[in-house]
């Protein structure tokens, strides 16, 4: 069976082509999904790429979460469809309440683009099963609003349930508990600020190919299923 990964384009999405290339690199099929359609096209998983949907105006992800496609995606995700949101995709997942907490202005008040050391905290998600628990990886980050915040209760629950998926080694934005990515309770929905799709080829993008693991993970999950 060929794994079909849907890649969503909102107005202002930037990393959709990059994500599609990464999906194809591991041998899966990339299926473009358009924000204004009410159709998930029967995909096996969905990737919400980064960018500046609706210009990031108002708040990152605030307007996108009302897209017609999201009306299909939210219930599907609640029923177990694997979903990965990176950067703006993560922000949209939080705004849509598929993930707890929120992403706010970097503590430095500057946009930051850099190669970031990270620790994979859990492999118990469809997007991280190809990593080793505790594995150190390098992925690019590039965002102005990536500081993860949540109430003390939510944070405690995230930690207690093992819902922190990746943590920063050297906090670039003031995120609470150095959180770079989280999952929902069920584990199928993952959001992270770093960009795995920019770290999949030797020659271009970040000086690592550690991002491939996210894509081989979902392929493995879908093919094994």
């Amino acid at each position, binding site marked *: 069976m060929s794994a079909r990964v849907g890649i969503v384009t909102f107005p202002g999405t930037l990393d959709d082509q990059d994500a599609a290339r990464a999906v194809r690199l591991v041998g899966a099929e990339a299926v473009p999904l358009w924000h204004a359609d009410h159709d998930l096209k029967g995909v096996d998983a969905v990737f919400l790429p980064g960018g500046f949907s609706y210009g990031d105006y*108002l*708040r990152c992800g*605030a*307007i996108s979460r*009302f897209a017609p496609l999201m009306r299909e995606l939210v219930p599907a995700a609640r029923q177990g469809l694997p979903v990965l949101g990176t950067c703006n995709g993560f922000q949209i997942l*939080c*705004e849509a309440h598929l993930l*707890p*907490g*929120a992403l*706010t*202005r*970097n*503590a*430095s*008040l500057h946009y930051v683009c850099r190669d970031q050391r990270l620790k994979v905290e859990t492999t118990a998600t469809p997007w991280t099963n190809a990593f080793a628990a505790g594995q150190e990886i390098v992925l690019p980050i590039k965002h102005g609003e990536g*500081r993860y*915040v*949540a*109430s003390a209760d939510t944070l405690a629950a995230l930690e207690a349930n093992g819902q922190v998926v990746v943590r920063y080694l050297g906090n670039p934005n*003031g995120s609470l508990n150095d959180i770079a990515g989280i999952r929902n309770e069920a584990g199928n929905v993952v959001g992270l600020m770093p960009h795995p799709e920019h770290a999949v080829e030797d020659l271009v993008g970040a000086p690592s190919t550690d991002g491939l693991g996210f894509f081989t993970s979902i392929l493995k999950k879908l093919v094994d299923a």
Partner: protein
Amino acid sequence: MARVIVDVMLKPEILDPQGQAIARALPRLGFSGVAAVRQGKRFEVELEGPADEAALEEVRKMAETLLANTVIEDYTVRVDQ
């Protein structure tokens, strides 16, 4: 035509780095006597009709679902005189 103001501020327990940066800069710029600054958003919503209760209810819903992220922000809605 009426105008409704929606003020959105970070909840008190959420760190506000922009407000802090301003507060830190003030003494350097020669301003004293400020204990703290918080920065939020202000929306001016021009209604097509009057600001009656029904319209205000719409704006409140808009604030609750769109203009504010109630996970981290509080909002107030009021008619501009």
